[in-house]
Every structure is written in structure tokens, then in C-alpha cells.
């Protein structure tokens, strides 16, 4: 495989610019992966990577990913919060890469909340 260069980055930029003008780049979903010490120790990094790879494969440019700190529920990590625009945030507990892929395909893309993995509804408070 040819090595990736800065020129490749320019090509990607041009390609993304072309596509952006075709569809509106609205942010429809925000996914928060909790990255405290507790989350990282129980596998949040792998969950995050599974999510990023799913987004890349699906070309889901309307999904933004962010990280947050510990919220005090260390025993239920890895935690992931899915916020679809104009809907209540859903917090998933004990996540792993497979569950993350399922949540991405069924909840983020198809809108079906994956009840067996849900910890709570509503936003968290991190202090």
C-alpha cells in the first residue's frame, strides 16, 4: 500500500468539501464515551474505537463523538451516553465493542433504544 502523505489529506479535504455541499452537515446525534480512569480501565478505549470505526464505515457524518470524565458510577463503566436531537439522552452501562456496534446500528442509525443495556434516561452531571 502506498504511504499516506499530506497530499492524501488535501484530496480528502476536497472530497469532503464536495460532499458537504450536497448534504447538510447537521449534527443529529451526540455520543459521549466516559473516559475517567475507571472507564479506561474497564475498556472505554476499545468501545470508543469500535464506535469510531462504525462511523467511518457508515460514513455517518451527522454523528459527533465526545469524551467526558468520571461521573461517579465507576462500577458500571464503560458508560456511553447517546443523545439524538430533540430526544432524551440515553445512558448505556457495561459497554463493550460488540454492544457499541449494536447500539450504533440499532439506536443511532435506526432509532431503536437498546433497552437491555440501558442504565438510565436523562443527562448526567459531571463535577
Amino acid at each position, binding site marked *: 500500500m502506498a*504511504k*499516506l502523505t*499530506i497530499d*492524501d*489529506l*488535501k484530496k*480528502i*479535504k476536497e*472530497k*469532503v*468539501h464536495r460532499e458537504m455541499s450536497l448534504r447538510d452537515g447537521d449534527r443529529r446525534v451526540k455520543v459521549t*464515551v466516559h*473516559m*475517567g*480512569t*475507571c472507564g*479506561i*480501565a474497564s475498556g*472505554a*478505549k*476499545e468501545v*470508543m*474505537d469500535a464506535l*469510531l470505526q462504525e*462511523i*467511518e464505515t457508515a*460514513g*455517518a*457524518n451527522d454523528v*459527533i*463523538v*465526545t*469524551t467526558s*470524565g*468520571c*461521573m*461517579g458510577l*465507576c462500577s458500571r463503566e464503560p458508560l456511553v451516553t447517546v443523545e439524538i436531537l430533540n430526544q432524551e439522552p440515553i445512558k448505556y452501562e457495561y459497554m463493550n465493542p460488540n454492544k457499541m456496534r449494536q447500539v450504533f446500528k440499532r439506536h443511532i442509525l435506526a432509532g431503536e433504544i437498546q433497552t437491555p443495556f440501558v442504565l438510565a434516561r436523562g443527562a448526567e452531571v*459531571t*463535577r
Partner: protein
Amino acid sequence: MLELAAHILDIAENSIRAGAKIVEIEIDENDAKDLLCVKINDNGSGMTKEEMEKIHDPFYTTKKVRRVGLGIPLLNDAAQRAGGKLIIKSEKGLGTSVEATFQLSHLDRQPMGNITTTLLALVAGNSSIDFLYKHRHNDRQFIFDTRQIRKEIDDLPINHPEILKYIRGVISEGLQDIASLA
């Protein structure tokens, strides 16, 4: 934590929480000296002398949601178990530097693990912060700088899926080039 890449992610998250604008991660693998050195520098808020004294205490944290702060004690333990040590330098208002050393060939040294996913998690989750990654293996070096990427992509967000895919490729190629063994 089972791999050094997870520790690095954890310490870098501390830097981000301290308001750092740029986080530098340096890894140095030296076969001749049998030494592995991992260093994380930031320009965050830094710590006072009083805070520095309590840093190794697992029951000290600046957070209010729980009463333990295990990130630093865990890395300290990982370094000591592998014949190394942890050195932390910090100045209030200027930033913090955390340096962990390990005997490269030590049986109890944790493996480096997947550093690519660590960097991707940092870049994707903190698109407004810059990261500089320097990895040296004997005489070969790989440098990854988000500022360089930002310069090329202008108004595109650095956490755009296509850009992250590019970053993933660049980092895995770079690590292959320097034949990192850790």
C-alpha cells in the same frame, strides 16, 4: 489497567481536565539502555506544592463525584513493578509533566498496547486541543502533530470521520516504520 496506552490516555485526560491547549506525548524505547520512557507534558493549570504532596495518595482527588483518584497511583505502581519510577513536575499556572520509566525487558512491564486507539480517542473526543506525539525507537523517530493536520484541512473539523480515518492510517504506518516493539 493492562497496557501502557491506557495509562497514557488516562494521564492525557488529566491534562485536558486541567485546561491544557496542547498535550505532548513522548515515548522513547532504547534497547541499548534497556529503558522505556513515557512522558506526558501539558500547558494546563499545573499544581500547587500542597497538591503535589498528595498526588500519590489514592484517596486524594480534585473531583467531587467520588473519593478516589487512582490514575497516578496506578501508573506509579506499573512503573515500580517494572524497575522504573514516576517523576512528576508541575508549576501552578504553567503546566505539568509526568514521566514514567520502565526497564524495557522487565517481565512485569506492561505491554504498550494499542497507541493508535489512544491517540484517536484523544483527537476525536477533544477536537479543540492539539496533540503532539513523538515516538523514538533507538535511532528511528515518528512524529505526529495535530497542528500540522489542522493547517492542511482549514475549516474542516479534525474529528470528521474521513480525517480520523486518515489519522488512523498515518499513525499505524508511522509505528510500523520505526518498528516499535514495546
